[in-house]
């Protein structure tokens, strides 16, 4: 179907079902129950899942296929966001021109940075991209924000003000990002018994775009171009002596992944019309690297899983506080309860990065292929267990 083989088609269908039914899948616990804090099916978080999914899918085209590790992709995300907000300020709150411009500007920006950075490979390439991203951050944070020429609005972040031109804005249109009148914030709430499910217009826009981008990524992975990118990773020397110039291949991959990042940035602004410089900081670039490696670099579904995994932990773990911990451990004797809370405390709330760090370490050590490898091993283990209990024992996997 759609020019894909059977395996890829079923993968695409699974992803489509999961994203379309996400409001149900992510809200398994009844609202108001003690477990409701583990529900992730609210619009803000679901939007972030798919937006960072797009970001990671694009990053994986560069890193997973060519092995070039960019530490500056957040710069393209940020540039995308700024472009989108400028479209809101100048034209109207319609998201289509905003998203289109964010992709175009990110493409030009990544062409420039890629052209310079790709003169080197390996660690030098990573450092160059990091340097460019930090320069972009500095530009956005202070240099391009002065009274004479205010492109980024510095520390405050770029936002839409009442006196902005917005030449196509009409009073009948919503006063927030919309798709031809359909507000991105409009949410339909479905209550079934104790459960409550949110269907948000912005989420579905992002979800559809992510599915299209995922489909495009599959096509790229399976194309001759994708094969050339894997050849770059495998042996550049042989490529050179086979009459192929690796430079334009890597540059094309860099620009494509930059466009994915710009698209993600544009969508972020479309969900919440605000762009700040912190979006371009090196931690943001590092995050997408973590997502890709955690999920499984070079695999199709890995980056999406990694993005979902990290965003889930960021939002859920960081919300747990000591009061909640005391509730959980209340069945223990007083002294022991306090002790347990003391032990767990550094890993929750603001300390969730510690949890993420440990998880990342475990995955890299025990599952170098990321969550995808974990899934494959689990599948194999289950199949082997079916064959015989004795055989399963010898194939015990440490990470499971």
């Amino acid at each position, binding site marked *: 179907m759609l020019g894909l083989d059977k395996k890829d088609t079923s993968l695409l269908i699974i992803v489509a079902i999961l994203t379309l039914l996400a409001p149900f899948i992510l809200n398994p616990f009844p609202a108001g129950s003690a477990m409701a804090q583990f529900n992730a099916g609210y619009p803000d978080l679901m939007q972030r899942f798919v937006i960072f999914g797009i970001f990671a899918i694009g990053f994986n085209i560069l890193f997973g296929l060519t092995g070039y590790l960019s530490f500056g992709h957040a710069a393209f995300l940020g540039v995308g966001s700024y472009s989108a907000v400028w479209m809101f300020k100048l034209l109207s709150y319609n998201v289509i021109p905003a998203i289109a411009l964010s992709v175009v500007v990110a493409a030009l920006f990544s062409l420039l940075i890629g052209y310079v950075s790709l003169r080197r490979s390996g660690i030098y390439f990573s450092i160059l991209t990091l340097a460019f991203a930090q320069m972009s951050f500095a530009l956005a944070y202070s240099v391009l924000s002065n009274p004479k020429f205010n492109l980024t609005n510095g520390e405050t972040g770029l936002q839409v003000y009442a006196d902005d031109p917005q030449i196509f804005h009409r009073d009948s249109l919503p006063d927030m990002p919309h798709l031809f009148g359909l507000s991105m914030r409009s949410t339909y709430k479905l209550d079934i018994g104790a459960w409550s499910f949110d269907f948000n217009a912005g989420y579905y826009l992002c979800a559809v775009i992510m599915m299209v981008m995922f489909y495009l990524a599959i096509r790229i992975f399976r194309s001759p171009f994708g094969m050339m990118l*894997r050849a770059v990773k495998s042996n550049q020397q*042989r490529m050179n002596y086979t*009459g192929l110039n690796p430079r334009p291949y890597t540059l094309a991959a860099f620009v494509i992944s930059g466009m994915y990042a710009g698209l993600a940035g544009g969508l972020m602004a479309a969900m919440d019309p605000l762009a700040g410089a912190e979006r371009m900081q090196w931690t943001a670039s590092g995050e997408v690297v973590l997502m890709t490696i955690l999920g499984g670099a070079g695999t199709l579904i890995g980056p999406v899983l990694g993005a979902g995994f990290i965003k889930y932990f960021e939002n859920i773990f960081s919300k747990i506080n000591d009061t909640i911990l005391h509730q959980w451990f209340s069945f223990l004797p007083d002294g022991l309860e306090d002790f347990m809370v003391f032990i767990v405390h550094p890993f929750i709330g603001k300390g969730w990065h510690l949890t993420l760090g440990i998880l990342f370490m475990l995955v890299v050590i025990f599952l170098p292929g990321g969550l995808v490898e974990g899934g494959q091993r689990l599948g194999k283990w289950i199949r082997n267990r079916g064959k015989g209990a004795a055989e399963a024992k010898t194939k015990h996997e440490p990470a499971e």
Partner: protein
Amino acid sequence: MGILEVKNVGKRFGGLQALSDVNLSVAENTVHAIIGPNGAGKSTLLNCLVGKLIPDSGSVMFDGQSVLGRAPYEINQMGISRVFQTPEIFGDLTVLENMMIPCFARRDGAFELNALPSVGSQKDVMDQAMHMLEEMRMADKRHMHAAAMSRGDKRRLEIGMCLSQQPRLLLLDEPTAGMARADTNNTIDLLKQIKAERDITIAIIEHDMHVVFSLAERITVLAQGTPLVEDTPENIKGHPKVREAYLGESA
């Protein structure tokens, strides 16, 4: 006038004069061997031919065109393919994919953004690659990871990859280095067969005299960065200067 003309080539690395005043003419459709003791400058000369090194002086002409200053991929597109001392293949890719890449390079040139059709839909390239794999007698291994193959198979694959570009000049850098006798003989047979079946010029750098005398029609002896003598294998065998330089015997 040979297909490859090297004139007065010199190359210096710091204090070491690696090549000085090298003249070499490789005639079309012959097998030309370049031999010499370690450090004679054989590999430096080869690197100057394929664009990895740029000589300090002199000229290198391939089929009437200068190769100097061109990138390795451009020189390859002119019709020169190179086989390395340790097989350089795409280890992470399958054998079939390895063979398809040079076929793509031949069809599409140095760069082509062919990002939407699937690899499987490129029937012409697929057929060419399968054909060459059959000729190399490794079609049954096409789904193997190239890195998992034996040294001899990797060498066959690399030679096959070079041939699938239909080069006019094939450069071989010690193709049998580190091989067992049986593998060496297989490689000799393969090269003989290649030569018999197509119009191709082969230049070979080799240490193993058995290989050289089985294949070469002309031999150039290089010593201390300069060609000592160039002649037919029969004459080289008994040449006193060669014995002196190469075997360390006093004439």
